[in-house]
Structures are given as structure tokens and as C-alpha cells.
């Protein structure tokens, strides 16, 4: 993992020091909206959870703005890649029940603008993920994910600098999170919101969620962004995963794989869990 930057060194070192690594084994599927209630009820029965944990996150997809091209030298590591980075924080607003379908003509889902207002304290998780492991006869996807968490105070600085209205981001001078990202060497290229529910079954985490994106065709109220579904068929994404602390812990990985397969077999009449395509999960920046 390499970051190219001209950036206050202390902040950067701080980030590196607090970077955690997990090896994630996963299987995915989709759930039609009509089967959502049934699926949730089944999973409640399976996991024995009375109430589900809600997921609601706001995600920024960022890309390094400088191309890093080290001199290729013999005897040194030459395979250096740059990666897209995801920045995740919570999405706090109550946007209604996920059980109800979101229809085009009666859609009122909105998210408030984060990068305006004062003293907006947020916890951000910066996440970089490697391309999933390649190989034949795989039973689940295995991917290494690095993440780091930081708390950021967003303060709006009223300045005379002309505001750049790039999409909904208002670039304000000083302590903006976007400025921070820019200092880190990254540009925001897209954003999305996640909403769904989460279950725990042993070591397995099961997430059922919908992805929202910005809706430019719809007028939104002040300080808010109108949202629409990424998948307009109202279909839920289904993801079951296990996080293993080390990519080298073969025993834990085998055990995790076995558990996932057991779940796959158990739920086979409900959802068809399959291995996601690693190429689609490739977050390397193509040169």
C-alpha cells in the first residue's frame, strides 16, 4: 500500500500507525424486494436475534490524484500499485423503513449535506482493499482490507475564496474533510449511501442492504441531497462474510470457509450465495 503525498507528516504517520488489516472471506447474492420480509424472518430465526442491527453509511470513493511511477530497479520491489480509497462515515438521518419499496414517483429519500455547517464532528474510516485472491476451485472470495479510523472536525470557514461548487461538495478552505483528503493525495470521484440490516451468526456477518446514489433529476430541500436507488428494481444486496485477522492464518481461513459453506448450504432454498467476481472488486487504479 503506497500513498503519494505532500502532506503534514505527523498526520500521515498517525494514519499509518492506526491502520488495521483484516482478511475477509465473503459470499454474495441478491434478495428481491418481495422476499425481504421472509428473508429477514428466516435469518432472525437462524441467528436467534430478536432485533436486527441497522446499517446506514455514507461512502466516498476517492482516487489518488498523482500517478506514482517509481523507477524500476533490479532487486527492488517493482510491483507498486495505487488504490482507490473508500471513506466511510455514518448516515444518521432517519429515512424511513427499508421494508417499504422506494418508488420513482414517490421517492423522498434525502441525505443532508455534510460539508456545510460548523463543528461537524465525524468519525471517518478510510479503507483500502486489495484485489481478492486469485485461484481455481475457490469456494468463497478472499480479500485483504486495510482500514484506519480518524475523527475529524469539520469547520466551515467563511472566506473570500470563490467557492467551487463541484457537485454538492463545497470546498471550504481550512479544516474541511475534503481538503484533508486532497492533502492526503486523493480526489473524490463518487459517493454512495448504504442502508440495510445486519445479522450475526457465529463468526459470520450477514448484511442485506440497498445502495443509494445522488438523484440529479429531483429537486431537494435546502441543505439536503436528493437520493435514488442505484438498483432501481428495489433489489437488496446480500453479503455474508467472515473477517479473519491474518491472511496467513490458514487454520482460521479454512474454518471460516467451512462455516460460510455451511451457511450457503443452509440458506440454499432462500438465497443462492455465490462467489463475487474478483475483477469487479479490483480497486487498483489502472495505469
Amino acid at each position: 500500500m503506497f500513498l503519494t503525498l505532500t502532506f503534514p507528516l505527523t498526520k500521515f504517520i498517525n494514519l499509518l500507525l492506526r491502520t488495521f488489516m483484516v482478511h475477509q472471506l465473503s459470499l454474495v447474492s441478491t434478495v428481491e424486494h418481495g422476499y425481504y420480509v421472509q428473508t429477514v424472518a428466516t435469518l432472525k430465526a437462524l441467528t436467534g436475534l430478536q432485533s436486527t442491527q441497522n446499517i446506514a453509511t455514507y461512502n466516498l470513493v476517492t482516487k489518488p490524484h498523482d500517478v506514482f511511477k517509481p523507477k524500476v530497479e533490479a532487486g527492488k520491489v517493482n510491483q507498486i500499485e495505487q488504490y482507490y480509497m473508500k471513506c466511510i462515515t455514518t448516515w444518521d438521518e432517519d429515512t424511513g423503513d427499508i421494508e417499504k419499496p422506494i418508488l420513482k414517483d414517490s421517492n423522498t429519500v434525502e441525505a443532508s449535506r455534510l460539508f456545510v455547517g460548523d463543528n461537524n464532528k465525524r468519525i471517518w474510516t478510510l479503507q483500502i482493499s486489495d484485489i481478492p485472491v486469485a485461484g481455481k476451485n475457490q469456494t468463497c472470495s478472499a480479500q485483504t482490507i486495510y482500514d484506519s479510523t480518524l475523527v475529524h472536525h469539520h469547520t466551515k470557514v467563511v472566506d473570500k475564496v470563490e467557492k467551487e461548487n463541484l457537485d454538492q461538495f463545497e470546498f471550504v478552505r481550512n479544516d474541511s474533510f475534503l481538503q484533508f483528503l486532497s492533502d492526503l493525495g486523493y480526489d473524490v470521484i463518487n459517493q454512495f449511501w448504504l442502508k440495510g440490516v445486519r445479522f450475526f451468526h457465529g463468526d459470520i456477518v450477514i448484511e442485506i442492504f440497498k445502495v443509494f446514489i445522488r438523484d440529479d433529476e429531483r429537486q431537494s430541500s435546502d441543505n439536503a441531497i436528493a437520493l435514488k436507488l442505484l438498483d432501481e428494481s428495489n433489489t437488496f444486496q446480500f453479503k455474508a462474510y467472515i473477517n479473519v485477522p491474518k491472511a496467513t492464518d490458514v487454520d482460521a481461513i479454512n474454518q471460516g470457509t467451512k462455516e460460510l459453506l455451511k451457511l450457503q448450504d443452509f440458506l440454499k432454498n432462500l438465497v443462492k450465495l455465490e462467489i463475487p467476481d474478483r475483477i469487479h472488486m479490483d480497486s487498483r487504479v489502472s495505469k
Partner: protein
Amino acid sequence: MSEFDYSKVPVESLESLRNRLNQVHLSLRKLADQVNHNIRNPNKAKLPNYAQFQNQFHVLITQLQSIASILTNDDDILKRTNAYPLPNFPTTEQEALVTTLLRKKPLPEVEGWMKDAIGRGALQESDLEKDEAFVKWCAETVQDLRDEFQFYGFHSQQELEFLETEEGKKEAQRKRDLELEQEEEKMRTTGGKQPLHPNKVFKFMYQGVLDDS
């Protein structure tokens, strides 16, 4: 023939006690032999020396101690147990009675009865065979009878007749309407669109690009 329940007999503690007593018996016998030998032939054999006696006593004491410990260990069960014949029973005079009373095997005449009963069981087996043949005949007959009928669909005759009536037709219409409604509801939620494959969603989540290809 009623089985006697031996599970309540404290065989284990009694057996270990008997073994230990046997050992004590042997040790005492050995000691007595040595002493008697000396008394009978005072000139030839000498009395064993002091150290040897000491050793023998030591062995005896250990054995007695272990008996004592068994007795205390199984105190509970041994207190409630009687071993027959009791010490005051005139064993030598009444040997025949003792052997009869303590007999474990059935008496010869009882054995005769048992043989008799087993013989009778064999006679009844022929009845069982007859029964089985009858059961087989019944199954075959039922199969034959069933082959004469033909079954179609999921409705019974009664239900089919009901469907023919005015009310039945309404019922069927209601069901069709319900199905149509569900289909419409599905159409409304999906907007007639195909769901996105997880791969496409991942591509968007990882690279911020949604390609329609």
C-alpha cells in the same frame, strides 16, 4: 423366570474385603508355620531372628490397615448388608441346607418348567407365520383395489363439483385476482427492471463506476 436384581449387591467392596482377608490369612499362616516348625524340631530349626519377625508384623499391620480403610470406605453399604450364612449358623451340621439355600441356579424341576415354556413358544411361531401371510394378502388386495382407480389433479371430486357452482367460480376468480395483484405489486416495486448483479454493485462500490455493459 424372574431375574434377580444383583445390582444392589455390593460385590465390589465384598470382593476386595475378601481378597485382603485372604492375604492376612496367608501371612498369619506363614508366621504360624515358622513358629510351629521350631516347636516341633527344637534342635534342628532355629526360631527366625528378630528382624524377620519385625518384617512380618510390618506386613501384617499394613494389610490390616488396608482392611480397616476398606471397611471405613464402604462403611455405609457394609453396615446395611448381611452376608449369609451368619457366623452363628451351624455350617458343618447343616451343610445340605446351606447349599440349598444359597443355590443360584434354578432347581432341576424349575429347569423342567422353563424347557416346557420355551417349547410352547416354538409352537406359537407358526401362528406368527400365518399372521404375516395374512398381512401380505391384505397389502396385495389393497394395491389391487387401488389400481382399479385413477387419480388426476389436486382436487377431490367434492372440490371439483364445488368449482362448477356459481360460488366456486367466484372463488376461483378471487384467487386469480390475488395472483394478478401480487404480480402487479412486484411490477410496481421493481419498475419492470432487472436486478443488478452483485458484481456490478461491487464495481460501483470499489471503483465508483457503474458500467452497463
